[in-house]
């Protein structure tokens, strides 16, 4: 068992004042077999009443409406999480598997990704788990981690074409290929010790259980991973979504921290 303290801070600056905005923030650690949220505090500025809810993936969210003019929007979430078991293994609900079996959104296999797939050899793999591990090693080897190489909107196929990207791209390519191989897979957004921003990885269905794989770091998820949300691709568990009136150009500052606090 491990206790983790986490903080997530986001500030958006606008060059032109925003007269009102709607926001949805999905940045609350998910309660599941592996992790348990002990305490949490959320603040939003400009100060606004907000509601709590859950989306259809059971990702926890807050949402609200800022009605006063502002040129900066920020939210800050801090709390403590207990990691109950080291590796992530959750029994899958049968009615929530099919949706992760088919190509979706940014995870559509294109010509180049399929060509790559054809170079892979899984003949030694005895199980789905083996295949997931094998693909993770290969992807880690064949794709380069380059900060800022891609954008939020970049698809798996586009990232693969560039040959480089960030954790979101690793996760997208990974789940696209797993689904193509017939293994249900989902995108996970979360936090990680030693990482100054949010992190992304994937969960794949092996023998009826969801297992967390982190292709960016070529490892199974560890005590240091805090899961915030999941979905069929990054867009479905994006940490924040907003709708603004005005704003001009905007600049974002994000900081995150996960600390072990025994």
């Amino acid at each position: 068992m491990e206790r983790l303290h986490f903080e997530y801070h986001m500030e958006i600056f606008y060059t032109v004042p925003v007269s009102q905005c709607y926001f949805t923030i999905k940045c609350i650690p998910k309660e599941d077999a592996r992790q348990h949220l002990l305490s949490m505090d959320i603040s939003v500025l400009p100060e606004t009443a907000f509601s709590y809810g859950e989306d259809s993936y059971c990702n926890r969210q807050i949402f609200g409406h800022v009605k006063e003019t502002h040129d900066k929007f920020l939210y800050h979430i801090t709390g403590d999480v207990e990691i109950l078991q080291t590796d992530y293994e959750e029994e899958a609900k049968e009615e929530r598997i099919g949706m992760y079996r088919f190509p979706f959104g940014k995870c559509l296999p294109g010509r180049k990704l399929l060509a790559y797939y054809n170079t892979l050899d899984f003949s030694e793999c005895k199980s789905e788990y083996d295949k997931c591990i094998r693909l993770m090693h290969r992807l880690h080897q064949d794709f380069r981690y380059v900060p800022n190489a891609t954008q939020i909107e970049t698809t798996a196929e586009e990232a693969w074409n560039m040959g480089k990207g960030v954790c979101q791209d690793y996760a997208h390519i990974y789940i696209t290929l797993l689904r193509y191989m017939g293994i249900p897979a989902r995108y996970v957004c979360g936090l990680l010790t030693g990482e100054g921003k949010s992190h992304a990885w994937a969960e794949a269905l092996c023998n009826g259980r969801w297992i967390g794989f982190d292709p960016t770091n070529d490892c199974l998820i560890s005590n240091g991973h805090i899961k915030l949300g999941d979905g069929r691709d990054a867009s479905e568990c994006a940490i924040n979504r907003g709708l603004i009136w005005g704003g001009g150009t905007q600049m974002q500052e994000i900081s995150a921290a996960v600390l072990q606090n025994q």
Partner: protein
Amino acid sequence: MKQLELLQHTDNVNELLARYGVKFGIYKDNTFKEQLFPFDSIPRIIENEEFDYLEKGLKQRVIALNLFLKDIYSKKRIVKDGIVPEDFIYVSGGYMAECEGVMPAKGIYSHISGIDLVKGKDGIWYILEDNLRVPSGASYPMIARELCRRSSPETFQAAHLEDNRNYANLLRRAMDYVNMGGHTVILTPGRYNAAYFEHSYLAEKTGAHLVNGSELIVEEEKLFYITADGKRERVGAVYRRISDEYLDPMNFNPDSLIGIPHIFDVFRKGNVALLNAPGNGVADDKGIYYFVPKMIRYYLNEDPILNNAPTYLPFYEADMKYVLENFDNLVLKDVAEAGGYGVAFGSSMTKKQKADFIELLKKEPRRFIAQEVIDFQDLDIMEEGRAVPRKADLRAFVLMADEPLVWKSGLTRFSRNPDSFIVNSSQGGGFKDTWVLSR
């Protein structure tokens, strides 16, 4: 029928319809054109007994479709039990993962269903398709009846027919049944929508407020209507005439300017009813159509009362074989298209078109269905003073309140082109009133 006194008033009724703004707007080549929806005054007449039969069949079908939607967005028993392959759920453009685990008030998904039927030359009625998202068209026979009664009261004194002006009451019943507390509103995308006439007419007849997105606001997990003097009043039910993707820019298409931010979150919390519920597209998909008779057996343990047109799914090997062998006798439909688009008759393709199509079919078998061409009965329409036969279908309306209600009328659409089977209003067809005899 040709002796009906009413027929002398056709031009008069059409003039009045134009004046009331009974128009159909269509987008073609990126421009918006409004066109009149031509009315033909020879009614489609359905005998009392025949309509009883239709009514039973329609209720059964809509009950099963509602159960299917409830099942698909929760336990998915029908998939688990192998009746519907999951390929037809998750790849369907109408499936919305956002609706997983969200239960609409009273478990009703399709409050207003528009079921399209045709009557074959064999005298048998066939279901052509189910419309469970935002089916339109009820207002046209409503207003046509009203104007015809005014033009020719004698005709209606002589005929014993069901009054169809009660549609507004049925709709009101369906809306009130699921209202979560507060006003009932009809949400329109605005006057440039193809069915704007209908939105305003139904609002007037049901007494619901006609609103656009900017008049509704979400506050503290509830939905409010902003009155003309700036007051906020709670809304408990929204008969929304905008499609799922534009409903809520915070949950669906972020570029939507006609939606209401967070309305879906309010719906999810059970604080407002949306008619029809989001996500219904997964049940009126042309691919799912094939499975409706199976659904009826599965959920209700009954034999389907109404027939589907004989349909084949190239997804299944045996059906693919049949389709390739009988290609010229079949009509092929792209499951992703609607409004009479994406429909091709095997017999009217050139050799090259046929070869290309078959190649595509083999590559994407899930994308198409094939159906026997139903030779449906012609109805007479008046053209330059003469009665001429044309293809026509019937859109029946089924409303779901504490019980399913079938409107004793319907929209009869006809093709003005004598060689065409496609009757959709977006393809330039016209309409008739539908008379259900009361005895």
